[in-house]
């Protein structure tokens, strides 16, 4: 899923500026709820904090809230049309996709981002997420024992470790597990160490961002 974190409260307040009387905070009920950044509870808490802040600033700001199932589908965004239309500013607690989709759906309104979208990751502890995929568009996990060298080696090396890792940790940051050590260990466990000996030619990055913004079409459905 997409992992995100809330922007600093001071940044949000600065971003909102002074020129508004009504604010609508929209949460998203999917990925960013799971990563505890933009779900129903975060929306409520942020609204309460802002109310407290503006009341102590002696500003009369009206704050409304809602959390839609997914900000990346227009059908859900239709549900909040009334609130969006009657408020000066919309603060999205969705990922970057959600913010843009809201902006697309409501071209006349100012839509602001409340989150920093971080990465695609998995839950690795209560309140902890770790990056597992960069969305390169051409999956190579079959060749690397199910551990992605593109996402999990800091240098994205495809043909073995760099030589800078120590005690299983990456030289870029000792908090990070060396991706190649993980690949190696799994290969040993699976009895497939030999497979790692083969040479992997340079990756074709056209499927990634290098080909420009991507679009995906499923011809079974797409009626273009």
């Amino acid at each position, binding site marked *: 899923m997409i992992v995100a974190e809330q922007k*600093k*409260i*001071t940044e949000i*307040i600065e971003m909102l500026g002074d020129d508004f009387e009504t604010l609508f905070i929209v949460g998203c*009920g*999917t990925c960013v*709820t*799971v990563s*505890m950044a933009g*779900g*129903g*509870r*975060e929306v*409520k*808490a942020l*609204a*309460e*904090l802002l*109310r*407290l*802040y503006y*009341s*102590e600033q002696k500003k009369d700001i009206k704050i409304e809230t809602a*959390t839609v199932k997914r900000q990346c589908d227009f059908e859900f965004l239709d549900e909040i049309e009334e609130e969006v239309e009657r408020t000066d500013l919309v603060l999205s607690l969705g990922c970057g996709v959600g913010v843009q989709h809201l902006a697309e759906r409501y071209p006349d309104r100012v839509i602001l981002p409340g989150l920093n979208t971080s990465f695609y990751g998995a*839950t690795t502890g*209560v309140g902890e997420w770790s990056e597992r995929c960069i969305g390169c568009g051409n999956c190579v996990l079959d060749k690397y024992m199910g551990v992605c060298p593109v996402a999990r080696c800091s240098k994205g090396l495809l043909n073995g470790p760099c030589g800078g890792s120590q005690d299983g940790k990456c030289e870029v940051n000792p908090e990070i597990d060396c991706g190649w050590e993980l690949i190696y260990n799994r290969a040993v466990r699976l009895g497939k160490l030999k497979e790692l000996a083969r040479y992997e030619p340079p990756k074709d990055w056209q499927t990634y961002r290098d080909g420009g913004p991507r679009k995906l079409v499923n011809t079974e459905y797409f009626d273009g």
Partner: protein
Amino acid sequence: MYDVVFIGDLIESPTLKSLKVDPELLLRCRGEIGDFHLTYKDGDGKVREVKTGTIVVNITAEREKPLPGVLSFEDDLPEGKEVDCLIFIQDYQTISPAIMSNRGLKMAISAAKKFPEIQVYYFYRSMRFIKDNDRLFEEARRLGILFLKYEKGNLVISAAGEVSYNREDISLRLEGKILMAPEIKPAEGLERVARILNLEMGPAGFLQVENVYLQSTLSGRRGVYILGGSRGPTAYSNLVEEAEYTLNEIGFLLQDIKPLVNDRREVDDQKCILCYTCYRICPHGAIERDEELDAMKVLNLACQGCNACISHCPASAISIVEDNNELIETGLRVLMCENSARTAWERMAGKDRFSDLKIETIPCAGSIKKEDIYHYLRNSADRLLILGCFEESCKHLSGDRKAYRIVNEVNERLKVLNLGENRVIFKRLAPRMEEDLAGLLSRWKEGNCNL
């Protein structure tokens, strides 16, 4: 339907219908006290599901010899021939648990009786007393076993197995058969069992969580008990009594299982996104996935009412039925955990000194929500004091730590927004600290944040 399933060794009971499941073969656990559903592989590798009222984890701990080549207190006595002396040693790395004093004394006594011509030495740092150790210790001394107390440094065992003991007034060099108290280590796979049963792990890889309420054989999850070597080295000291007690408690409990809390916590299946946060943070293993609704559900008999799930659900999907969440009052509010501060408050004399404070009882400090805290602080004179338990004495295991984190988070935000510092304070208290409570309430009332 079984009364109890033992994960590990079975303990016979004349009245309870019991089953033993090998820990390695356990696959899944669903349900709650009175109605656990356990999935496991039987001897033929066939997957089975059984229903049971309770579960007892009773896995023998591993034994590790402190040195290679020595005998353990749990091995058979060596042959007496060709041995100059027998050297018993306990407490070699850390102080051995009392059960090892018991084993060692018994073994030394039988050695002294069997080989009266051989001198038996017994080195120890601390003799520990359980059961009849007092009597055994006396008997052993009467039999002429030489007990020598050592400190780190005055007992050295050479690689060749020679034992030397040196104090200013005694110097011994002994060559003989060495018998040592083994170290007790968690069984392999204990962690896996904990994960399947959704139990918190304790220190050193055992299942006994450091919490005053989890005695004597309770786990955080109602109806799941932890016995003996699964709990830790000292859990062997009263194993017989604890086993008897636990089985009697199970017999009693299964007669009539009542919920521990009155209000049901309900999950709104339309809001629930199955993030499993509640499942992970519930200290009582009281939450599981409702497969029909495809949403999480709170198990009513397992729930102990701490409300951590409510305060932590990122989708705000969990609530108490008929929860009256109207927070209008402002001023100086004190939220007291019902298990610690509230008891101290009840015991405290002179409550009228604090009649201007708004005192509220909460089921656990971990139940506080940050949105509610912001809501409480509506005008600049509002302050909030949250009183919870000391670490490791929270009835809900980690409520104090949860509260501590939430309050820190809130204070950080208030600080950067210049909304005042120390407006929200979290403080730990015990039920018998009524005098401390009176003191800290008066200081806090005066605006003193150094409580």
